[in-house]
């Protein structure tokens, strides 16, 4: 893919370790935003952005509603809200029903972003124990975007990427050590 306009990384159980390994190797001058939607417990709010910002020179921030999406920034979905991408490339938050028992749901972010970025969207689904993100990847494909998953064999919990592999025509299956290079080449 050329001219990637957004990378969204979704994950659940076992995905944080992957992020902590991959993030330091992503070049800080990439020309697209990295949007992270990870299932986590409500209340542990500011910890995740803090944890991630120790691993990169890019700015890492928890999303504020109506915030403009800026390339080269790492955005983390706040806990207990769905994260949506608007046509005018701002974020909005939504406290509606959980999807796949999750809020934020990876599906919601993948799906709303799919329509906005179309062919210039890359979505990466990591380790996890439920099937959140699978429908979202399908929508991303329908709009011409790229669906990428962590190699289930390398995932602490293989279920989520495995489900995606079964139901969606995946473009790339990546081992953890190949992820950063893949991401750097999107720029």
């Amino acid at each position, binding site marked *: 893919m050329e001219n990637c306009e957004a990378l969204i990384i979704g994950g659940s159980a076992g995905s944080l370790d992957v992020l902590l390994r991959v993030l330091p190797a992503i070049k800080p001058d990439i020309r697209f935003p990295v949007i992270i939607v990870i299932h986590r417990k409500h209340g542990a709010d500011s910890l995740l952005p803090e944890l991630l910002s120790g691993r990169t020179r890019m700015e890492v921030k928890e999303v504020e*509603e*109506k915030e403009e999406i800026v390339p080269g920034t790492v955005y983390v979905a706040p806990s207990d809200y769905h994260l949506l991408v608007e046509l005018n490339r701002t974020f909005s938050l939504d*406290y509606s029903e959980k999807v796949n028992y999750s809020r934020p749901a990876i599906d919601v972010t993948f799906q709303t972003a799919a329509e906005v970025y179309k062919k210039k969207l890359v979505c990466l689904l990591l380790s996890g124990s439920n099937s959140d993100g699978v429908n979202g990847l399908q929508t991303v494909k329908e709009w011409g975007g790229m669906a990428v998953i962590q190699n289930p064999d390398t995932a602490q919990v293989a279920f989520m990427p495995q489900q995606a592999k079964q139901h969606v025509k995946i473009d790339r299956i990546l081992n953890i050590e190949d992820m950063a290079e893949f991401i750097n080449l999107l720029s």
Partner: protein
Amino acid sequence: MELPLISDEQVEILLSDLLEHYGYDFTGYSKASLKRRVIRLYSLDKIPGFAEFRYKIINDNVYFKRFVEQITVNVTEMFRDPVFFKTLRDVVLPRLGTYPFIRIWLAGCSTGEEAYSIAILLKELNLLHKSLIYATDLNPSVLEKAGQGMFQLSYMKQYSENYILSGGKNDFSSYYTAKYSLAKFDDELRSKMIFSTHNLVSDHSFNEFQLILCRNVLIYFDRDLQHKVLELFDDSLEDLGYLALGTKETIDFSRISRKYKRLQSEKIWRKTN
């Protein structure tokens, strides 16, 4: 899954129908969220086509009500964000307690869980007798539910945990009686609430308050509408009164912000005179 059942243009058509036929203005709502809600309802009700959907909304008053109720988000809980309620309990309400009478506006109250939470705080602070909670929402049906003061018994465990985390010292179950699968909250709490429809988009200020709470409503509005609604709150708030918003909401971008001072780390602002 196939490509979206309803396009952005079709959403716009529905919104202008609502405005034209019912006077409900959703044009200032955040589009991505609204569209998701519309598509969700469309699939849920298995509507065969867009034309039929549109026809039903315009001509079937009962379905129109369902439509409005379903495209707006009515998810809420008691003592959600316990730390926020702890600040109300420890800081805000005691200061308001020095007034002879306390008027509180809960805007976008949905099914009433927050109204009952606030009433419980007021009661424990011995302020309930001189307080009134005006709880408003644009949906008449959620207000009806709120007025009954009955919530799922199965939620009480979670609500009780929230209550304790918010600094509650009593036995939470002393505030309700179990009736089959429902928990019916004390009439004493209900007696200090006034439920009424109010649309933040189109209705005006209707009183002056010392505390306005509007949590997780502004997130559904675009910036222009947020500006407008914050001005409505400013017009409705007495000097030295408090404005409380949701965890991820702010007044920082707004023209009213220069008159307000934020309280600690919570999303609570005090109007300065």
